[in-house]
């Protein structure tokens, strides 16, 4: 047996195409006069929720990384190695070092933003709240190697960092 084809019974005697056309045209005309919703991107940009209301990135947005620093301007990272361990994309390169006082710090800390899948595990796992994913989206560069962010680059970023959870619902309820 052939595949059953459902034949829709269309209302043929009860529709007026002329009136349906006029109705549709009234609709498009009304829509034409309504305010436009397109955000004019280069002039208008999304900003944190507090400032701008409707057109803003979520505080949970996971963008390119940022390394937080302490008061002396040193990175908070203690080179514990948890983030490269948990990173599913294997995009974090960490070479730990230790100074005379026994404080561990990263000799090399690089994130390849091309390999990164922006899962946010690095921020979640970090015991020092050092590495963060940022609420940020303008990442254009002129060459591919500029997308490997080194420690200095990560530390000098100033954009807001992701909360990873909804601040109004911290327990995820």
């Amino acid at each position: 047996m052939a595949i059953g084809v459902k034949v829709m019974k269309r209302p043929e005697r009860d529709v007026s195409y002329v009136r349906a056309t006029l109705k549709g045209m009234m609709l498009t005309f009304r829509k034409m006069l309504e305010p436009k919703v397109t955000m004019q991107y280069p002039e208008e940009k999304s900003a944190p929720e507090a400032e701008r209301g409707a057109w803003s990135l979520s505080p949970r947005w996971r963008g390119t990384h940022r390394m937080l620093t302490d008061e002396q301007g040193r990175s908070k990272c203690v080179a514990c190695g948890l983030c490269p361990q948990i990173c599913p994309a294997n995009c974090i390169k960490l070479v730990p070092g230790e100074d005379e006082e026994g404080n561990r710090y990263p000799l090399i800390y690089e994130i390849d933003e091309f390999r990164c899948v922006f899962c946010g595990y690095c921020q979640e796992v970090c015991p020092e709240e050092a590495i963060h994913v940022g609420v940020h989206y303008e990442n254009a560069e002129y060459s591919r190697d500029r997308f490997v962010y080194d420690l200095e680059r990560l530390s000098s970023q100033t954009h807001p960092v992701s909360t990873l959870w909804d601040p109004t619902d911290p327990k995820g309820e």
Partner: protein
Amino acid sequence: MTPELKGFLLLTVVKLLVVFTITMVGVALLTLMERKVSAWMQYRRGPNRVGFAGLLQPAADGLKNIIKEETLPAQANRLLFVLAPALSFIPALTLTSIIPWASPLPVRFDFTLPLLGRFVYDGLLPMAVADLPVGMLFVLAIGSTGVYGIALAGWSSNNKYALLGGLRASAQMVSYEVAMGLAVVPVVILTGNMAFSEIIKAQQQLAFGWFILPLFLSFHNFLVAGFAETNRSPFDLPEAESELVAGYHTEYSAMKFSMFYIAEYTSMVTISAMVTTLFLGGWDIPFTHWDETPGVLQTVVTGAVMFAKMFFWLFFFMWVRWTLPRFRYDQLMALGWKVLMPIGLAYVMLIATAVYITDSLLALTSPMLKMLILTGINLALGYIVFIVIDRGLLISGSKNRPVPGGLDRAA
């Protein structure tokens, strides 16, 4: 050459240049307007990057199209492929020459130029490049030649989609040419003349003597046929992008492609001007006879009025395009041959009979009464056509579609 002839030629050349320039600039701005209107109807803003509010967008598009690479399909018929855009562009542009854009301008000059001699003109200057006595026939004749460009473009591209688009275009334009011709006949019956200037004059007799009310069905048929003639949505089957890539201009690029676009928009201008002239009194300002006495101010104001009316119809074209979905091909043919043509024929008979009765049998002298009678007839007819008959009968639903073996077998 007599000084009078030289004066006439000089003015004609000036009018030609003015009309050509205005049409080309207008067409360029129409492409912008189309994008703006479509954007607004979809909650968008439309192009607003180039120039103030995007006003230079057509210039940017034009520049891009001029410097783009021209491609020529390997197996295409070179001659026809190159000729086709011009063939569709020239008739569209030719038609703009016979439209009266404003009331006649009183012109008087008499001067002598070195080498060229004396130029004399004294009298009323029609604000059309050529006020042809057979204007209406000219429109129908030249308008139908536009299909050559499209059909040849489709054929010479050596591309199946283009060929299908070209075939559809020829069938569609030939079909709707009939409906359009029939829609014009009642106007000619009422006017007794084919010249556009006379058609406008006939609509100026009364305070509000526009033919849209006494010939409403004609107006409707003409508008629908006009949409089909310009290949605009909902009759844009020749380019039906969802089925035929881009239809007849699939293989065209750069300025040749642009030519088809210019032709389409010029046809839109022509059809808008025709609707305005035939049914909305052309440059006539209703409820006043001030515009009938020639004068410079009158020419300017009536020109603006003509522009306003045309602008509405141009907007209407876009409005419909962004509202209605495309017809199915058999629906298109059914609408042309089974609906518009019979209605048009019957309407011609009816109007002819009505005019015969009012003019010869009743010998009515008041044009007002005649118009009222015709309006009454149209009200009744409009009720029958748009309210009673239009119940899934005007545009056939799926019931008229031939299915091999019938739908029941599948169900």
